[in-house]
């Protein structure tokens, strides 16, 4: 009950309190609301911020890891390339060393080979020496030839002079000018005069106008001259008296060559006959035997061989005419026929046998063999 009282006391004030409370609550509501909003917003913000922070951190983490990964990759690549470059540099260096050596060697051996150049220059000097010697020899040879030619020319001139002046030769009585009695020995010219044949002053062959030296022609030093015929007769000759024929005509007539007529010049027999005779003569001369040449062996099958005299007879004197002179024909004999027949038959059989045999062995039989046998049979 106490509670109820208290409650009743409080009840009067309840409405006011209730009102006041509500009013204070209402009055505080805004503030509280705002405060709640503030708190909530703050909290929400915190939460979001925390969330963002979290996201940020995660993103950073991811990026961090990703970037690390990329750079590590990149770094590896860089290292690789750096290594590669280092290697290449090294190789290049080594290659340069090799090439340096090689180029030096090659140039020194092939392009600017000092020793080869030296050898070449020595070879050149040697070759020059050889060439110089040869040229010297050639020049000397030419000189000699020229001298020889000059000498020969001089000799020729001297000889010609000696021939011309042959009359200066000394005689028994008169010593020539080259053979003065006060000299110990005659002048060489004297000896030359003795050797030379006197030059006759007969007219030389008139020089053909076509033989002048062609070198003269271009400036035409000698104008053209028609060829002159026979030489002119000497001046001042006495003309023979009388109306003689012209000497040239006479000579022409005298030495005219023979011109026989056709009748005289031709022979009696006609050319045809002459040719025939000629042919006959040839044949008579050349003929060895009259046997015609027959081309095939079948033509020679039935030929009878005629032994030569030497082979056909026995050696020694012919008995016919000395020992006997009659023919003997045993097949005409009457007596001894059976015996002979027997003989003959055996010999014939032998013959036949042999004949047969021979025919078998060789195609065309050596008939002489057969006949030889026949002949050498025991006498009939």
């Amino acid at each position, binding site marked *: 009950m106490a509670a109820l009282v208290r409650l009743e006391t409080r009840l009067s004030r309840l409405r006011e309190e209730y009102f006041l409370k509500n009013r204070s609550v209402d009055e505080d509501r805004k503030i509280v609301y705002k405060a709640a909003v503030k708190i909530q917003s703050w909290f929400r913000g915190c939460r979001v911020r925390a969330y963002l922070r979290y996201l940020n951190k995660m993103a950073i983490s991811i990026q961090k890891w990703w970037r690390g990964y990329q750079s590590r990759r990149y770094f590896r690549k860089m290292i690789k390339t750096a290594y590669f470059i280092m290697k290449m540099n090294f190789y290049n260096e080594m290659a340069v060393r090799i090439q340096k050596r090689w180029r030096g060697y090659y140039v020194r051996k092939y392009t600017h080979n000092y020793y080869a150049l030296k050898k070449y*220059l020595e070879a050149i000097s040697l070759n020059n020496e050889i060439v110089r010697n040869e040229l*010297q020899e*050639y020049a000397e040879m030419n000189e000699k030839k020229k001298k020889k030619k000059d000498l020969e020319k001089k000799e020729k001139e001297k000889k010609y002079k000696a021939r011309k002046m042959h009359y200066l030769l000394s005689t028994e009585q008169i010593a020539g000018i080259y053979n003065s009695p006060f000299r110990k020995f005659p002048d060489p010219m004297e000896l030359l005069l003795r050797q030379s044949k006197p030059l006759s002053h007969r007219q030389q062959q008139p020089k053909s106008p076509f033989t002048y030296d062609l*070198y003269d022609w*271009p400036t035409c030093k000698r104008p053209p001259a028609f060829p002159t015929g026979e030489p002119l007769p000497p001046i001042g000759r006495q003309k023979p008296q009388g109306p003689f024929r012209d000497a040239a005509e006479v000579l022409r007539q005298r030495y005219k060559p023979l011109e026989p007529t056709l009748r005289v010049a031709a022979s009696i027999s006609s050319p045809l006959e002459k040719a025939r005779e000629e042919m006959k003569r040839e044949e008579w001369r050349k003929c060895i035997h009259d046997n015609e040449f027959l081309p095939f062996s079948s033509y020679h099958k039935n030929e009878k061989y005629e032994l030569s005299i030497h082979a056909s007879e026995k050696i020694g004197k012919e008995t016919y005419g000395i020992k006997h002179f009659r023919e003997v024909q045993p097949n005409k004999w009457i007596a001894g026929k059976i015996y002979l027949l027997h003989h003959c038959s055996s010999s014939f059989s032998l013959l036949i046998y042999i004949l047969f045999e021979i025919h078998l062995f060789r195609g065309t039989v050596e008939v002489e063999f057969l006949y030889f046998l026949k002949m050498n049979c025991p006498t009939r």
Partner: protein
Amino acid sequence: MAVRADLSPARLKISFLQTYLCSETERSARRGHSVGTPREDTPRGHPAAAVRCGGTRRLLSAGAVIGAAAPRYRRARAVGGRQLRGDRRGTPPAVPPPRAPALRSPTNTFTVHRAGEKSRVPAPSGRFSRGIKGEGVISLLRPLLLDVVPTIQQTAALALGRLAYFNDDLAEAVVKEDILPQLVCSLSEQNRFYKKAAAFVLRAVGKHSPQLAQAIVECGALEALVICLEDFDPGVKEGAAWALGYIARHNSELSQAVVDAGAVPLLVLCIQEPEIALKRIAASTLSDISKHSPELAQTVVDAGAIAYLAQMILNPDAKLKCQVLSALSQIAKHSVDLAELVVEAEIFPVVLTCMKDSDEYVKKNGATLIREIAKHSPELSQFIVNAGGVAAVIDCIGSCKGTVRLPGIMMLGYVAAHSENLSMAVIVSKGIPPLCTCLLEEHEDHIKAAAAWALGQIGRHTPEHARAVAETNVLGTLLSMYMDIRSSEDLQLKAKRALKNILQKCTYLPALEPLLHDAPPNIMKHIVGQFSKVLPHDSKARRLFVTSGGLKKVQEIKAEPGSLLQEYINTINNCYPEEVVRYYSPGYSEMLLERVENYQPVL
């Protein structure tokens, strides 16, 4: 007539001639008779015939001998000729002067060639011929060319040729008087003597100038001459070839005209003929044709001339060798290919024997040929060196004097210019001493210039080469030539260039020192430069430089500061300690004395 003035001496001369020639009258009259003229059927010794042929003979003499006769007789002859012409044609002369009957006497006959022989004076000069021109000799001779008697035609042509040969006015007169077409027409018809004489006339006219040669070409003479080249007689061929050669000589258009007329294959055939004179002329014509341009030379080569020319080098005749070598060198000079073709004809080493020939011009032409081949390329020069050509040329230079040496000197220069190995080959073959002697001995400036150039080419490659050149002490000669006022510009230029080229490579100091004393500044620069290159490295040379007075000289040189010369001098001075340099500087003794004067002795 102006002749009247000297009538009496002329009459005396003529009467002298008459008596001289009378002794041959009868004989020559008979001979004149027996020479085949168509009208001559009278028996020998007939005076009328003698007069007739004597008359013609005198006419001929008037023409032919005028060109060749001694000057005193010419006027009388010319006048007499005119008189006689009137006589021959049957019209009486207008005013017969008193001496005319003497000339016209039947006993005064003489054959042309006799007169030509007796009264001939070789090479009458233009002075006489000009005098003759006034008498109208050409117009006198022209109708004689159409004469019936062949001998007269031939001798008239001969006379024309001789007149035109020695005098270009007369040659022009020959062209103006329209004689050439006449000659050309009859060139194809007549006998070989006429052809020879006509070819001689064409040659004589064509020799003087290109315009006259052009006139000959325009009147169609080339075809006729080429037809003559196919003739059987070698003398005709020779005359035709010679005429073609003289025409082709002047310039390349005329050469081309000759080639277009088809002369080259026939000339190559002519070369193969056995007569030496014909070969000679054909070779010289080919040489004249091919010298103008490479195309003409190629035409000659295409006709196959090189093989025959190469064979003929072995011929012993000197003049033929000259011409052949000249022809080959004219062919080879144009291009590398032509030179190679010539070399392929295997002329080496035969050509080297020409260098030892006794005739100077053979040597000269042989050297020219080798030079033309060597100048084209290093390979050809190498080939020549390997064949021993350099030795032969050097010997040739040593044995000759004068212009004959020039091609040989140039050949050495060309060979040495190609490469340093070839230059060394020249040095090894002992090429430098003959060149030095040339430089010293020769009088002509162009030969000296060539020798200087050749030495420059030899010495410019490496220090070895320069040393080889400098050792012969030729640098001083070159310097003196450069400094000499009397030397021609060409010589000075070449000497300077050679000197520069050699000095830029020369490290042989003993040869450089004498030059220090009298060189002009532009050369001095090089000399001092060389010293400045060598001295820093060689102590013995430094000592020698000092003792020989070189350092003193260098100090005396005044150079603009900053110039190359000053730098070189500084380099040299830096090689020596300062006292030495001061000692040798000019005016040092005065400076010392001054110091002595200013010195206060310390008591």
